[in-house]
């Protein structure tokens, strides 16, 4: 290497501290997965703004670990990181689940609920579920991870994932059933 090249390399090094980030890859990851990460955080009880902040944190961590992340595992890395953030730094931001009867949120006279209300109700159903069951339920039903992927992500045996998923589905159905405004209408007739 010539003196000039060596000097250029040293200058580049000094300009690039700390380590440079592959911004193109990070941008692609953000475009592909930021909605999923944000949605997963929302389902863990964060408000839209808090979920956005935690999503940023998730991508900042990913930026730092970019060279360690295998491309096929980007999604799993991001979601795993987001879940860890919820359990640690964002634990306090998880909104308190309301204690009052969530059925009050649905007017039995309404035959149609809008999307936003439906999402809110979904979160209330989750809030009534065992958190460990809700976690597996979200990862499988909403995020589309396979059982083996979930097992690796939350570090439990595959059989535990299958059992939690079965119980989670049953619980979800039961709670949703109790909230169903059409059933309440029938009962009130």
């Amino acid at each position: 290497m010539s003196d000039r090249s060596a000097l250029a390399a040293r200058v580049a090094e000094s300009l690039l501290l700390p380590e440079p980030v592959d911004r193109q890859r990070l941008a692609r990851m953000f475009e592909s997965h930021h909605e999923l990460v944000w949605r997963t955080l929302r389902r863990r009880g964060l408000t839209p703004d808090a979920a956005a902040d935690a999503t940023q944190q998730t991508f900042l961590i990913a930026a730092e670990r970019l060279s360690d992340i295998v491309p096929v595992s980007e999604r799993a890395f991001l979601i795993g990181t987001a879940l860890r953030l919820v359990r640690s730094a964002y634990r306090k931001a998880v909104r308190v689940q309301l204690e009052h009867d969530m059925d009050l949120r649905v007017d039995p006279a309404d035959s149609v609920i809008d999307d936003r209300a439906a999402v809110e109700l979904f979160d209330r159903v989750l809030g009534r579920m065992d958190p460990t069951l809700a976690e597996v339920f979200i990862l499988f039903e909403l995020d589309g991870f396979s059982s083996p992927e979930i097992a690796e992500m939350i570090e439990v045996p595959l059989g535990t994932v299958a059992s939690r998923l079965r119980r989670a589905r049953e619980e979800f159905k039961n709670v949703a059933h109790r909230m169903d405004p059409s059933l309440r209408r029938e009962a009130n007739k």
Partner: protein
Amino acid sequence: MTKELGSEGEGPLSEFGQRLLAAARNERPGPELSRRMAEQLNLPLPALDLSPIAATPAPLTGWLAVAAVVVVGGGLGLWAYQALHAPSTRVAVQAPAVAASALPNRVAEARAAVSEASQAIDTAPASTIPEGSASGAPKPVAPVTPPERGDLREEIRLIDAARAAVAARSSTQALSLLRRYSVSYPGGTFGQEAAVLRMEALEQSGQRDKARALARDFLSRHAGSPLAERVARVANR
């Protein structure tokens, strides 16, 4: 393979339950939230699907769509120009992201500037090499510009906050701020200061080996840095 929810062998999921599940599957951040996240990370605005449930109202939807077209179009234009003129493949590949973000990618700029400067300098110390100085050859990328005042203020704010966090021994917060700094300002004005703060925060968080390794690496590359003495303390602890 796991069966679909409500399929055979399980009680059926009511229409109401399916409705809730579908709504939750489709929720996504509104365009404003997506834009804010991208901006904070100094990344290009993602292509936004504006159809389903947005978490926030989207009064600027139309404007954002137009802006996205303009920005992406501008990026493609610049990319095409660079593809024709740039001698360096790497810079040409990086450039669309720079243009598309409408925010300076200082890593790419620094590399381009260094590449050009190496043709013209012999012994000038790193700190005296003007960005974008050069040789008279056509520039492969847009001219390097100094940080905007707002950027510099934000850099200072982040570094100050990180320094305060280190002083308060809040290593997690310090590392988080420094991550944000390194992503937002890869060739930032305070890169060395950020690197040193990071070592100190790592040390506080118990990651002494990593801190020492970074310190040794720093000293091998920046022995003459005014921060060298401070770094040496980390390396020798």
